[in-house]
């Protein structure tokens, strides 16, 4: 029910209705971007953003730096374990 899928906004199709096209793993789908636009983030500025798509809405942006840091932590844990076992 709370399923969310990452996708990248590639086009704004209707500024008034806040509609955009999102590329989700090669599949292009129209989504509503009302949840992620405000004065600081107008629709036009959303192109290229990675978002989490849920029931036809882009619910939030994906923070690329935070994702990278999480993955980096996994790398460091693996490296530390490899160091212990050698």
């Amino acid at each position, binding site marked *: *029910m*709370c*399923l*969310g899928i*990452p996708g*990248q906004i590639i086009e704004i199709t209707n500024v008034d*209705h806040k509609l955009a096209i999102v590329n*989700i*793993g090669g599949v292009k789908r129209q989504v*509503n971007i*009302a*949840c*992620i*636009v*405000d004065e600081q983030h107008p629709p036009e500025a959303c192109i290229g953003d*990675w978002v*989490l798509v*849920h*029931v*036809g*809405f882009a*619910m*939030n942006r*994906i*923070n*690329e730096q*935070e*994702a990278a840091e*999480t*993955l980096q*932590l*996994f790398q460091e*844990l*693996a490296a530390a*374990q490899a160091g212990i076992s050698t």
Partner: protein
Amino acid sequence: MKYVDEFREPEKAETLCCEITKLCNQVEKPIKIMEVCGGHTHSIFKYGIEEILPQAIELIHGPGCPVCVMPKGRLDDAIAISQNHNVIFATFGDAMRVPGSKTTLLQARAQGADIRMVYSPLDSLQIAKDNPDKQVVFFALGFETTAPSTAFTILQAAAEKIHNFSMFSNHVLVIPALKALLDNPDLQLDGFVGPGHVSMVIGTDPYEFISQQYNKPIVVSGFEPLDILQSIWMLLQQLVENRCEVENQYNRIVQKSGNTVALQAINKVFAVRDSFDWRGLGDIPYSGLKIQPEYAQFDAELKFTIPNLKVADHKACKCGEILKGVLKPWECKVFGTACTPETPIGTCMVSSEGACAAYYKYGRLSTIAKRTITQKPKITQEPLPACGFSSD
């Protein structure tokens, strides 16, 4: 797929399992962790996470599956609305096979009701535009994750002056449900894996009461296997260090204060009900959302006559105890016999996020059911077996 595949690497899962095992050795007691969200339950079974964890850890599958907590009476109300001759009733597919007291939406459709499955509430609004001579009703259900999408749909219907559209709101709130669980003396928990996508909307601040008033740690988690394993690892770190804090593993999506735009939409369109009936948990105060009087023209509960009756669950069904984590699915007499995903008696067998359906589909009962923690667990530092994850 970016932001998915990287979080499914088996080698990293094995690394995290080793770290979890080390911490289990330090805790030296059985550990009960509840994953609140049905999405987590589904992932845990899909990827076999329960099997690769040390035996000291028991995962309790919580009530965070909106379909599973839908009481029969509300389903009866939905079916009653759908049976009006001029109504097109739109719903997410999840709700189609949920049993009411006599029938399901799927059976009601077979008997002639115009019931349509939609992917988004906006699709139901489009159906209303395409069918101006019909009343279109959307079955709005879900936690705070889904509520913004229905709120924005009502706002759009109001802006476009679409008068043949309404919603039957069954949105529920996660915080009152967690409080009800924590107040249940039958439930003994060491910590929570918090719901990731609900938190994307509400943030992590609302969980502070769990650590401050109930002295339980909670880690808000993503849904990929590495997310869940890291969250369990973070919970164990808190237990080892004798901390009770709200932590956020899913910080690539979840911000502390949530999504203010989405919250504003929810607060504009919805008001909190005085009480709402949850299957298995009963009436929980201030745990449901109704449509604000300002948008009454879009409230199906005001537009249509509904039975509005409370209906008791089937006596043989133990969904209530399972949702509270008091019983395991296989301890229910009808599990896998009279109650299957094809012929569900209880809601936990309907949704893929329900604990019963997950156990039924992914099986492994022979190994999982044996994982009792009544004896002191045997914790080992030996290398773990390969996790066997696939990224497809």
